[in-house]
């Protein structure tokens, strides 16, 4: 049973560019969340998707957007990249309902130069 899978593993972008990160949730999970983890910090919640809709959003600007597909996979898009966007981007999945464990993927390392 595959866990949460993310791609790409590492990428380098130039300031001002746009990036798309991808996530496939754990089998049986229908809810996907994205987190940003800066070096030496705890993960920060970006947003959560369920039934292809953004259900919750953390304190991140509109440059951060997402999408969930009918097969529950998800994309995180970041526009107009800033140096400060350099971080590990984590995808987490769970099943919709109360009491379900949240699993994380290995993350995508984004470096903005």
């Amino acid at each position: 049973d595959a866990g949460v899978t993310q791609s790409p593993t590492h990428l380098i972008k130039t300031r001002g560019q746009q990036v798309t990160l991808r996530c496939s949730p754990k089998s049986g999970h229908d809810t996907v969340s994205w987190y940003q983890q800066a070096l030496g910090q705890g993960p920060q919640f970006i947003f959560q998707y369920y039934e292809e809709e953004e259900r919750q959003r953390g304190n991140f600007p509109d440059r951060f957007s997402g999408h969930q597909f009918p097969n529950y996979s998800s994309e995180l898009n970041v526009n107009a990249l800033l140096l400060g966007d350099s971080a590990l981007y984590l995808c987490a999945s769970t099943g919709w309902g109360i009491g379900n464990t949240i699993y994380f993927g290995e993350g995508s390392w984004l470096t903005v130069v």
Partner: protein
Amino acid sequence: QQQVKQSPQSLIVQKGGIPIINCAYENTAFDYFPWYQQFPGKGPALLIAIRPDVSEKKEGRFTISFNKSAKQFSLHIMDSQPGDSATYFCAASQQGGSNYKLTFGKGTLLTVNP
């Protein structure tokens, strides 16, 4: 505003010791408190979790103690091993209403010396 405060920032113990990591939260609506273990270059892995209706939960060498009135919870690692050296994060969420947003502490870097 940091809603989950974690301490200490770093911790060094000898093999066999019992490191204790503490967390305090502010939001009384939180009802799910997991601990995650993260190795360098990897994503966080769920270690153990507790809900506020119990005061203690044990899984293998890992134990969570929960004090609802003090709004504090802690992780104890029994018979710690060098392989336990990692960063540990406490987190909290309000899962009622299908809210899965996790609020994390800043992490504790644990080093277990042989």
